[in-house]
C-alpha cells in the first residue's frame, strides 16, 4: 500500500485507504493538504454504510481518467496501448480524436462506464444517499453517476410511475393539469406528411 489516509465515518467507524482513492474527493484532498497534526479525517455527515459504498466507487476510479465529466477524452499518455511517448498536441480536441480512433482507449472507457452503470443500478434511496455524500465530499464522477442512476430509473416511465419511484405526491390541481397539457401541446405531432 502506498501512503494512506484514515477516515472516520459519522457513526465512528475507521476506514484506512490509499491516498489516490481518498483524493477522488476534493474535500478530503484539501483537508489532507492542510498541515493538521491529525492523520485522521472525520466525516460526521457520512455514515459507515454509505462511506463504504463511496470508497468502493473511488477505488475503481483511482487510476482512471475522469471519463464522465470529460466525456471520454483520454489523453494519449494514459492510453493503455501506447507507452505515453505518443506525439501529439495536448489539446483536449486531439485527445478526444485519439481516444475515438484508439481501440484500447475506447475499450477501457467502455469497461469503466459499464461498471459504473451497474454500480448505480440500485434503489433511489441509496442513490439519494450517494448523491448527498458525493455533494458533501465533492466527488464529481460520483455525482455524475448518481444523476445517471436516477435518469436510468426515470427512463421510459410516465409521470405517475416516476412519482411512485421517487415517493412523490401529485400536487397539481385539475386546472394546473389542463394548463400543463396546453403548455406542451407542441409535442402532439402525428408525423403525418
Amino acid at each position: 500500500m502506498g501512503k494512506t489516509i484514515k477516515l472516520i465515518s459519522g457513526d465512528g467507524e475507521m476506514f484506512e485507504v490509499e491516498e489516490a482513492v481518498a483524493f477522488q474527493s476534493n474535500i478530503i484532498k484539501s483537508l489532507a493538504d492542510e498541515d493538521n497534526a491529525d492523520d485522521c479525517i472525520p466525516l460526521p455527515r457520512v455514515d459507515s454504510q454509505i462511506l463504504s459504498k463511496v470508497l468502493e466507487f473511488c477505488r475503481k476510479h483511482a487510476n482512471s481518467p475522469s471519463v464522465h465529466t470529460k466525456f471520454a477524452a483520454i489523453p494519449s499518455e494514459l492510453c493503455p496501448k501506447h507507452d505515453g511517448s505518443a506525439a501529439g498536441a495536448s489539446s483536449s480536441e486531439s485527445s478526444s480524436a485519439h481516444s475515438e480512433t484508439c481501440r484500447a482507449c475506447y475499450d477501457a472507457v467502455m469497461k469503466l462506464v459499464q461498471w459504473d452503470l451497474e454500480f448505480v443500478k440500485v434503489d433511489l434511496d441509496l442513490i439519494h444517499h450517494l448523491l448527498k455524500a458525493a455533494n458533501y465530499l465533492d466527488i464529481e464522477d460520483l455525482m455524475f453517476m448518481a444523476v445517471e442512476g436516477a435518469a436510468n430509473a426515470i427512463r421510459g416511465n410516465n409521470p405517475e410511475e416516476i412519482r411512485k419511484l421517487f415517493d412523490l405526491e401529485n400536487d397539481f390541481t385539475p386546472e394546473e393539469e389542463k394548463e400543463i397539457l396546453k403548455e406542451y401541446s407542441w409535442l402532439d405531432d402525428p408525423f403525418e406528411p
Partner: protein
Amino acid sequence: MSSGSPPQGRGRGEGEEEGASSSRPRFGRRRTDYPSSSRPRSADAVWPEHFVESVSIRVADEAARFEGRLAAAPAVVAMFQVCSTWRAVSRSEFLWQVLCRRIWSCRRRSLPSWREEYVRLHRTAANFRAGRSAYFSLLSPPTDDLPCCRLALSDRHLAAGFLDGSVRLFNVPAGRLLATFRADPHRDRLGRFSQAISGIVLLDNRLAFASQDGDVHVAELSAPREAPRRALVGNLMVDGTMVDFTGNARWWVGLFAGAPGHSWRVWDAAMELLIFVGGGLMDSAAVVGWHMLTDIMKPVVGRARILEQGVVVGCSTSSMEVLDLDGVTGTILNQRELRHGGALVESFDAGDGRVMVVDSRGVATVKEVPALTEVSRFPTLRRSERQHGSPSLEGCMNWGYALVCISRGVHVWDAITGEYLYVFRQRIGMATAMAASDRYVVAWANDTGLHLWDFGAL
C-alpha cells in the same frame, strides 16, 4: 431500464389515487436499511432542484441517443408533470439553453427565450421528419443557360455560385435576391471555366468564394454593393485545379487536382495565411482535374467538407480521408478505401459530425467522423436504375436527414437509422447542386432553376 424499484413497489394503497391533490404529507415506512434519520419528507429537500435539473438533462440526452432527438422533449416533459416542484425546474432558462446545445447543437438564440428556441428546433425537426415544408421557386433557369455549381446556406442567407464565376446572395426565408458578386473581371484566365465557382464559405457577416483557378474572393455582407476583395491569388500552373473549397470562420480548405502530393491547402481564414500544403487524395485525378478547366461535363472527382470538430473530410472516387485542422493541422487522422466500384462523389456531404456518400451501386452509407464507423446504410436506387451505367445523382445531409436527388425526385432518409421517409412533392428534375441546413433545403436543376424548401415555416 433496469434500476431496482423500491421495496414498497406499487402495493401501497393509501394516498395513491390517480391525480389526487391531497396536501397530506406521506410518511411511509422506511424503504431500506439505509439511515433516513435526516430525511425530511418535502420533495425539494429530498431531491433538490438542481439535482432534478441535472437529471432532466441526462434523461433528455439518453432519450435523444437511443430514440432520436425528437424523443428528448417528451421524456423531459414527463418529469415536469410529476409534481409542482419538478414543474418549477421547467422555468429554468439555463436548462433550456443546455438542452438546445446538447440536443440540437444550437448555441445561438433567435427567439426571446431559450425555451421558445427549443420549441422551434423541435418543431422544425418534426417538420423534417414528416415532410412538411413551405416551397419557393427562387430563380427560374436564365435564358443564357448558366448552370449553378455550388450552393451554401446560413441562418439568414443562401448563396449560389455559377459557372461564370458569379455568386448570387439571397435572404432566407423570403428568397429575395440581395446582391450579385463577381470576381475581378480583368484577371488572367486559363481555360473557359477557370473562374467557375468551386466553393463558398458563407458566414453571418461575410462570404468567401473560390474559383477553380484557386483565387479566393471575400465579400462583406453588410456592404453588398462593394466589389469583393481578392484575398488569395491562385496559381493554376503550380497547384492544379481547385476542385472544391470549404471552410468556416477559422479555416479555409481547398482540394486540388493536378499537382501530385498537393491535394490539400489549408489557410487560416482570419489571417488569410497558408498554413498547410500536402496530401495525395487527388493524385489519381490529376488529368481529369486539368480537363475541368475546359469541360464542365466531367464527373465530380473530389469533394471536401469541413466539420464542427475541427477536421475536414475529403472524398475521391476511390477513397475518403479525414484531415486534422484543430490539433496538428494536416495530420491524416483516418483513411478509408471505398470499395464496390467506388463513390459517386457528387453524393458526398457532411452534417453534425457525420458524412454520407453513395457508391456506384446506389448504396448510401453514413459514417461517424473521425472514426469513419458506419452509422447506417440504405439503397437509394431501384434495381432498374442501377443497371443503366453510372447513375446520376446529387446528395446532401444535415443533422439528421440524408437527401438524394435522382431523376424521379428528391428522396429523404433518416440518416441515423437509414429508414426511408418520403419524396418531395415537387419534381425538379436532375439537381446538379444541393445543400441542406437544419431548417432549409436548396437545390439547383438546369431545367427548372433554384428551389428552396423551408421546414421551419410551419
